[in-house]
């Protein structure tokens, strides 16, 4: 967190020295993006709050925590492949899930499939690539996401 603030301050200072106008434009652009995404983030926070209240931590830990094993990965991979959540929302949500007991490798599988495998967006992909290529690509990435999660799991258990 502190580091992020330091980086931001340095970036803004360097940017101002090089081109104040451009800096102002950039800050304005960023703030507009924030405004655009804020309602959705608020709504997700509310829903996550309600779900976390109803689901006790023990259940989350049992199915998506460190002891969940492979089934936790598969669950995360399927959820990530089907879901259509932008990263701006997925990361804050993941941060909360980790604090509630979901393991880092499971989050990695979720994030990776969320970003790389698009089950619902496959029709769009097929418009560009035809039918076969998206099927192969999404399949390969689905497997890769599980492997990436496994590798991260090994590192976190060290």
């Amino acid at each position, binding site marked *: *967190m502190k580091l*992020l*603030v330091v*980086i*931001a301050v340095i*970036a*803004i200072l360097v*940017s101002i020295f090089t081109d104040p106008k*451009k*800096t102002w*434009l*950039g*800050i304005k*652009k*960023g*703030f507009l993006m*924030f*405004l*655009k995404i804020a*309602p*959705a*983030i*608020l*709504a997700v*926070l*509310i829903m*996550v*709050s*309600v779900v*976390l*209240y109803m689901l006790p931590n023990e259940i989350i830990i049992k199915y998506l925590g460190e002891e969940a094993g492979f089934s936790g990965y598969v669950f995360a991979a399927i959820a990530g492949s089907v879901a259509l959540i932008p*990263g701006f929302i997925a*990361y*804050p949500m*993941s*941060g*909360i899930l980790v604090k509630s007991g979901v393991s*880092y490798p499971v*989050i*990695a599988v979720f994030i*990776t499939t969320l*970003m*790389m495998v*698009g089950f619902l*967006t496959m029709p*769009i*992909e097929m*418009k*560009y*690539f*035809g039918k076969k*290529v998206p099927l192969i*690509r999404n399949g*390969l*990435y689905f497997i*890769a996401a599980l492997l*990436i999660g496994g*590798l*991260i799991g090994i*590192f976190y258990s060290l």
Partner: protein
Amino acid sequence: MKAILRKNKLSLTVVLLFTVFTVVSVYIGFKPGVIIFKKHFFSFLMEMLLFLPIMFILIGLGDVWISREKVEKHIGSDSGFKGILLVIFLSMAQVGPLYGAFPVTYLLWKKGAGIRNIFIYIGAFCTIKIPMLTFEIGFLGWKFSLLRTLFSLPFIILIAVIMERILKNKNFRMQQP
């Protein structure tokens, strides 16, 4: 401002309902309502309010300073290691969801980028966009972000190579919808 309100009708309805629910809960002393707000929602909200504005300022600055055209100029059909690095760098500077990558890949393909580079672009676009990395580091930490990026890169390249093997000599072509 109006456009933002219109586009987020559903989200804003949720926010409004939750506000009413919380106020009523506090007023009549409905415990679950108070707990959901105090224990869960409020602490999440505070964290977001600290992180998000800083991140979006960084993203805005990145958007202004890194222009796609500048990098794109340097990816012709030249392949090899330098090509891979350039494609990765180009994709890192992007924003938006996966399906936003396809129009750009179409452009790259039309300009003569190789099959491998096209799929490296898609893979890197999905996983290591700089704006996303700032979010990832902020919410999940350096260790997680670094590990995930490091482990993802070989898979991105490997899958791109597999795709190239499969599609080579198969008359691969992209189309614009």
